[in-house]
C-alpha cells in the first residue's frame, strides 16, 4: 500500500483530531480528507484506522461502500450527469452519449489531460428541470448537448 508523504499524514492526523470526539465520526473524517485532497488516498486508510483504534478493514469497508468517496485523484473539474428516471424521460441517455464522445472518456474516467472527470449520479433533486448536471458543485438544469458543450468550453478556459 502506498504510504502518504509526511505532510499529508499530518493533515490526516489533524483532521481526525478535529472530529474524533464526535459520536460516529468516520464519515465526517472521510469527507474532510476528501475535501483536503480531492480523494481518499489509500495511504490515509491505515492512519485513520490507527488514530481511531479500529481496523484498516473497517475504514476500507466504509470508503468503498459509498459512491461519493473517490480513491483516485479527480480531474480539475468533476462533471456529474444525472442518469435517473426523470432525466431519462428528458434525454439523459442522449446527453450522456454526447458527453462521453465530447470528452473522449466513459463514466468513472478522467481525461488524459486531467481536466475533466465524468461521473454518473442518481438524482440531483432538479427533476422539474431535467436533464440535470452538476459541475464542481454547481447545478445545471435543462441541459442540452449544446449547453453542455458551452459549459465544457467554459471549464476548459478556466483551467
Amino acid at each position, binding site marked *: 500500500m502506498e504510504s502518504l508523504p509526511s505532510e499529508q499524514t499530518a493533515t490526516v492526523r489533524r483532521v481526525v483530531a478535529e472530529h474524533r470526539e464526535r*459520536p*460516529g*465520526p*468516520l*464519515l*465526517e*473524517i*472521510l*469527507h474532510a480528507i476528501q475535501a483536503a485532497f480531492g480523494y481518499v488516498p489509500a495511504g490515509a486508510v491505515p492512519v485513520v484506522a490507527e488514530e481511531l483504534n479500529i481496523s484498516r478493514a*473497517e475504514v476500507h*469497508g*466504509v470508503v468503498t*461502500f*459509498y*459512491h*461519493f*468517496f473517490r480513491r483516485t485523484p479527480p480531474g480539475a473539474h468533476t462533471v456529474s450527469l*444525472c442518469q*435517473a*428516471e*426523470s*432525466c*431519462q*424521460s*428528458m434525454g439523459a441517455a442522449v446527453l450522456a452519449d454526447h458527453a462521453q464522445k465530447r470528452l473522449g472518456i466513459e463514466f468513472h474516467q478522467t481525461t488524459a489531460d486531467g481536466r475533466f472527470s465524468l461521473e454518473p*449520479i*442518481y*438524482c*440531483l*433533486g*432538479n*427533476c*422539474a*428541470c*431535467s436533464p*440535470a448536471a*452538476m459541475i464542481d*458543485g*454547481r*447545478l*445545471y*438544469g*435543462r441541459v442540452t448537448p449544446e449547453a453542455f458543450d458551452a459549459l465544457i468550453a467554459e471549464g476548459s478556459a478556466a483551467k
Partner: protein
Amino acid sequence: MSTTVYVPGDAGALSVGAGEVAAAVSAEAKRRGVELNLVRNGSRGAYFLEPLVEVRTSRERCAYGPVRAADVPSLFAADFLNGGTHPLSLGLTESIPWLKSQQRLTFERVGVIDPASVADYVKHGGYQGLERALALSGAAVVQAVTTSGLRGRGGAAFPTGIKWKTVLDQKTKTKYVTCNADEGDSGTFSDRMLMEGDPLSLIEGMTIAGIAVGATQGYIYLRAEYPHAHAALKAAIAAAYQAHYLGPDVAGSGKRFDLEVRLGAGAYICGEETSMLESLEGKRGEIRVRPPLPAIKGLFGQPTIVNNVITLASVPWILAHGAEAYANFGMGKSRGTMPIQLAGNIRRGGLVERAFGLTLRELLYDIGGGTATGRPIRAVQVGGPLGAYIPTKDFDTAVDYEALVGIGAMLGHGGIVVFDDTVDMARMARYAMEFCAIESCGKCTPCRIGSTRGVEVIDRILAGVDRERNVRLLEELCETMVQGSLCGLGGMAPFPVQSALKHFREDFRARV
C-alpha cells in the same frame, strides 16, 4: 424605504440562471443609482417559470418570469420596481393560477421568506408551533400529532404519532431525533426545496419532536448531492442558536435541544431508516434486521425518532393551527396535504401541495399541462425508482396512500415522473434492476444477486433468446426478490419491472 426584489437562491432556480439574474439586478440597480433590497428566497416551486423574479410593491408581490439575465435592463425600463407591465409580467404572485389552486400548509413560507432570517420566519408565523408545544406535556404533543393523522412522508406512510409515542414511552436517559434528508428518489425534490426555502420549519419540527419525547440531540442526515441545502441548513441552525431557539435553553423554556447536520456519501440505500442510522454512526450503510425498531433501539442503541423532512416540517403547522385543522384536509386514512412533485417530461413541472384526493389526471393534465415534448403521455412512475409504472387507463386514481396501493402502485415520497410515448418500457425495467444492483447494500442475497441476474435476464429477452422462458424466469425472479429481501430496496425494485411486464408487455421483445 427601498424596494424589495426577490430572486430565488434555490438550487433548481440557480440551475436555470437565477444567480446570473440576481447579479444582473444588482448591477443594473447600481448603474441606475437605485437602492433596492435583494432577497434570495426559496423557490415557489413553479419551475417552468424559474427564474421567477418578484417585487414587493405597495400592493402585494408582483411576479415576472421566466427571467433571463439579458431581460433585466428591460425590466428596469418597464419600471418593474413599481409593478410595471412587461412581456414577462405574471401579475400578482398569489394570483398565478398554478399557485393559486394549491393548499400550502407545510410549504406556506417556501419561496415567500428569506430562509436565513429568524425574524422573517417568526413574522410569517414561525415558532408558534413550538410555543404551543412548550405549554403542553410531551404526551399531549404526541397526541396532537396522532390526532392530525400525519403519516410518514418519506414513503412508508407510517403514522407519525405512533412512532413518537413509542419513543416517548422508553425510559432511557438518552434519546435521539433524526431527520432522514436522504431524498434519493428520482422525481422528488420537496425535501430539497423545503430545506433551502424554509429550513427553520424543519428545525422547529425537530425541536418540537425532541421536547415532546425527551430527546436533547438531533441529527439531520443530508445527502451529499445537496450542497445548497447543506449551506442553507448550516446557516439556519447557526441563526437558530443565535436566537436561542436551539441550545441549552430553547425559547426560554429551560429545555435543551442541540442539532447538527451530517452528510451522507452517495448511497441510495441510506434512505432506508436502519441503513441511515448505521451511516450516521460512521459505518457502512448496511441495513439492520428489525426488530428491534429504531424507536426502541436506534441511533447508538438508543430510542430514536426517524422521520422524513416533510413529516417533521409539517409538525409546526399542526401544533400552531391544531390537529383537527390539519386532519380536515385529505380523504380516508390519508389526512392533511401532500407535496406532490411533477417531474420529468412535463410542461408545467414543480411542487404542488394539495390535500390528498386529487386524481393523477388532474395533476398531469390540468396542473401539469401534459408533456414538455407535446407528445402523448404513455406512463408515469409514482413514488421513485421502486414505484410502479402506471398506464393512462389508471389516471383517474386518486393521490391517496390506499387508492394507489389498490392499483398495485404506491405514493412513496410523492414524486411523479412523466414519460411520453417514445419511452421504451423494457429499458426502464432493465434500469430498475441495474439501479438496484448499483445501490444494493449487499447484505441479503435476493437483492445483491437477484438484481444483477435481473439485468442479465432482460438483456437475454431483448436479444431474442428464448423469450417466453426468460419472461417467465424474470417474473419468478421478481417474486423471489419481493418475498425474500430484507428491506424495501430489493423488496420493491421489482415493482417497476412487474408493472412494465403487466402493462407494457409488448415492449419486451427482441431488438434488432
